[in-house]
């Protein structure tokens, strides 16, 4: 009884306190269990034309793959220059990680990130809005090919195709200034990322990321990342306005 009272009180208290930023804002599109909680194991939604609907706010449950995309002991065979750079980054305490200068993450480190991202889906286009660093990514699903001529881009160029219920996203043209993860796995201008997204139920996203970069790695390698839905909430503002760390970052 006390727990029920405490739960009700806290829900009201926190929703009132947080209402200006929609931190707790019930979404009528979310299926509910009998007690009113989001039913995260309900059937994954589809658009009227049968296309899987990935809309929602998602995050990785931990920062494990943000820290190290090869966290599960995946065999990663680097080319000699990549291995040297990777070791140098370890020895320098990752002080040159782009985030240290408040530059945003890129494709794979955002894939592994535990901060929220909103997926907005419309015919021909999927947009990801990342709360951290106030960043976004566009995945074109309108049948276009990757551009032949391309300037290096922080998030590269992404096209997506449906393979049954799985969205297969090809990305190329990612700037070499970005790191694959916080620990410092490097990449070259030949980087080709394949992400396979599948929503097995309402509250979960499976994400299989393959790194294919023959200039940096002797063979492709694959990480398996899961996302969880963040129901009944929204993104918060995030601008790097009070950066004080960069000048204090030191290597060895």
């Amino acid at each position, binding site marked *: 009884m006390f727990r029920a009272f405490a*739960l009700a009180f806290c829900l009201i208290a926190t929703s009132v306190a947080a209402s200006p930023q929609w*931190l707790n804002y019930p979404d009528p599109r979310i299926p509910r269990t009998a007690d009113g909680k989001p039913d995260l194991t309900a059937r994954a939604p589809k658009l009227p034309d049968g296309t899987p609907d990935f809309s929602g706010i998602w995050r990785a449950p931990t920062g494990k793959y943000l820290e190290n995309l090869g966290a599960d002991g995946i065999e990663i065979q680097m080319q000699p220059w990549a291995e040297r750079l990777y070791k140098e980054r370890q020895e320098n305490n990752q002080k040159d990680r782009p985030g240290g200068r408040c530059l945003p993450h890129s494709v794979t480190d955002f894939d592994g990130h535990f901060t929220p991202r909103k997926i907005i889906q419309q015919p021909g286009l999927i947009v990801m809005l990342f709360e951290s660093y106030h960043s976004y990514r566009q995945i074109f699903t309108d049948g276009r090919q990757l551009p032949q001529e391309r300037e290096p881009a922080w998030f590269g160029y992404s096209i997506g195709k449906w393979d049954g219920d799985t969205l297969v996203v090809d990305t190329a043209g990612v700037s070499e200034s970005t790191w694959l993860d916080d620990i410092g796995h490097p990449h070259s201008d030949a980087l080709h990322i394949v992400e396979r997204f599948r929503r097995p139920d309402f509250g979960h996203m499976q994400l299989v990321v393959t790194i294919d970069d023959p200039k940096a790695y002797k063979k492709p390698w694959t990480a398996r990342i899961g996302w969880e839905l963040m129901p009944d909430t929204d993104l918060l503002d995030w601008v790097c306005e009070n950066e004080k760390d960069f000048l204090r970052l030191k290597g060895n």
Partner: protein
Amino acid sequence: MTRKLLAVSVLCAALLLSAVPLVAHHSFAAEYDNNKPIKFTGKVTKVEWLNPHIYVYLDVTDSGKTTNYAVEGGAPNGLFRQGWRKDTLKIGDSISVEGFLAKDGSNTVNARTWLLPDGTKVFAGNTEDGGPASRNQ
């Protein structure tokens, strides 16, 4: 009353909110020295509740000499989602901090634990910045 509200917030956070990792945009090891742990109690002189990290400035008096420390915490959004607010700590509040000093010799500290005089923990959460885990989490 403020203390009661704070206690309610803490209770709510503990009851309802799972430990969401706090963001660190930089590497812990590049900035802080895990061989320089520090623990002190001071009075809040300023709170900066801003991205990418909160900073709380504390006047710490030791043997008659007062030093102002800049204490770095988590990211405001992660803290906000866990129930903490920009006015959780107010100017003049007393707070005990355990953390690690910066490598550059400045009075800058990365806090792993913040405790009110009654032992209530504030700004609790996991930091996934590669730094030493808080002793109490």
